[in-house]
């Protein structure tokens, strides 16, 4: 399994919860390559397995079976402490509900990954302010999350995800709590600041309005990738197929997103 220029390589990855009659197959053999320098979206209806896949890729959940390589490392081969350090160093998170710590200012929230890595407070907060400035948020650096709008909070969350210069950024429904215009602005910012050579961005989303920002879209349903759109920004149309080894499913989409394939 090669990983040159590839951030994530997934082969036949499955994830099962529970046992016996209550067993739930959340992922049913995921084959997916996520390339560095690209923005990949995992889309699909609720319960399709996209958040579970994100959790497995980030090492927050263990895969039940299959092969997974993230930035050249097998998460399952790492000891728990090594996995935490790996996450701290290489991964940046943007959560649906922002998950900013209410007691900390915007700059302090941005500084959290650096503080977790042992950077001194003053230095970390100064760096946090720099990142906020880069996202046009310098004037809100000392504001508490409760004093920020939803869009501003998501920009702070984006700065927090970027501040320690990770190689893989994962975003869980980053625009779902925002109105269309603010969501679009956040995506423009994310696309402009997060996507660069040597770094991959994965976004889990329901929102078809932001699909245009994706280089690759994996449509998921019932724990499978039912279709894959690759190289979208270069005008290539979707092949409607998952990688060769992936299981193909004809599950019905429920949000109209499949209508955009090739569009």
């Amino acid at each position, binding site marked *: 399994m090669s990983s040159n220029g590839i951030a994530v390589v997934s082969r036949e990855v499955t994830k099962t919860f529970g046992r016996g009659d209550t067993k739930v197959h959340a992922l049913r053999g995921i084959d997916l390559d996520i390339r560095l320098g690209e923005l990949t979206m995992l889309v699909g209806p609720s319960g399709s397995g996209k958040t579970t896949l994100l*959790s497995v890729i980030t090492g*927050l959940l263990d895969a039940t079976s299959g092969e997974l390589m993230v930035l050249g490392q097998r998460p399952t081969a790492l000891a728990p402490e090594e996995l935490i350090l790996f996450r701290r160093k290489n991964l940046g998170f943007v959560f*649906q*509900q922002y*998950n900013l*710590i*209410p007691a900390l200012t915007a700059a302090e929230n941005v500084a959290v990954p650096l503080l*977790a890595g042992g950077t001194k407070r003053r230095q970390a907060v100064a760096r946090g302010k720099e990142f906020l400035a880069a996202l046009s948020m310098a004037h809100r650096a000392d504001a508490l999350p409760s004093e920020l709008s939803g869009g501003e909070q998501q920009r702070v969350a984006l700065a927090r995800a970027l501040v320690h210069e990770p190689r893989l950024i994962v975003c*869980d429904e980053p625009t779902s709590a925002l109105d269309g215009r603010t969501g679009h602005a956040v995506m423009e910012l994310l696309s402009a600041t997060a996507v660069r050579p040597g770094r991959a961005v994965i976004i889990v989303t329901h929102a078809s309005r932001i699909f245009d920002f994706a280089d690759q879209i994996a449509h998921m349903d019932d724990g499978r990738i039912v279709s894959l759109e690759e190289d979208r920004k270069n005008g290539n149309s979707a092949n409607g197929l998952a990688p060769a080894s992936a299981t193909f499913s004809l599950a019905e989409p429920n949000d109209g997103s499949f209508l955009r394939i090739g569009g």
Partner: protein
Amino acid sequence: MNFVALKMLVADRAKYFGLIFAIAFASFLLANQISIFIGIMTRPASQIRDVVDADIWVMDPQTLYDGEVYALRDSDLYRVRSVSGVEWAVPLYKGTGRAKGPDGKFRTVILMGVDDATLVGAPRKMLLGSIRDLDQPDAGIIDKAGFLYFFPGEPLQVGKTLQMNERRVLIVGISDASAPFQSFPVLHTRYSQALGFVGRERNLLSFVLAKPAPGVPVEDVCHRIQAATGLRARTTGEFSGDAFLFYLRNTGIPVNFGITVMIALIIGSVVPGQTFYIFTIENLKHFGALKAIGVTNRRIIGMILLQAMVVGSTGYALGMGMAAAFFSVFLNYLPTRGIVLPWQVMAGIAVVVFFVVVLASLMSIRRVLVLEPAVVFRG
């Protein structure tokens, strides 16, 4: 990450102050009740501990403590003196009598009749006058509380008189005698004179006070006295303990204070414990995010323990400050004089508070440790 932990702690002011005040009041209540309990329970031995010259108390075998005494025969004094290892032995009368003031106000007093020749058993801490003044006819030394009872509003002075058993008692000194359990005035006089101040009984020798010869262990001398005379001989420490245990076993004081202390312990454990637990549960989402971002479990445990230690130590300090203020205010109040906040109580409560906050943290930590960081992706 310490400052993150502290900012999270103080951000919710209501819970933060709730935690601190719960611990502070529990600490205060514990310190207050335990100290008063110790203060009260050491009072039965006040007159024993005030006698610093003698190391051995000899008494009737059935005498359990100094509050109820069956008198010895006068000859017992000589029998004790004859025991080998006894350097000297002197008589002591301890009993109660009724004293009447010039305005007719009377009160039961604790009467201490000390050896005429040596004045062994006389008060050591004098506020006015000297124990040598006991040599005067009808002389008595009364404690400050007693003087202020009989002569309220008057400055401490010698020369005042009381009446006991139709006899004059001339106040020649004011002592700082330790407060007795019953809060009675304490009146010291000579042994020969004490006999006149109380109603005549056949035998009035309450105790024989003795001193072991140099180099002879006090316990050995006690054994020898018991073997030679059949009387009960106790060291000062043992006899103080006897008095303490007597009141412990025969009064409702320990039950009463015990209930209060238990309530303080329960409230002091449950309220801060529960509040701290809720505080952590409310922050579970943020701890989950921190875990996802890459903060180790060890670091999160450190953050929670730091929060617990801050509220614990702040609450404890506040509680001890309140207790210290309470005792300093009441230190010179006559009914509660001598009741202080012992350092051992402070240390004990520090240990209790430490265990309470650690216990509360452990419950919270358990929830954080079992928290799947993937929860952050569930909205």
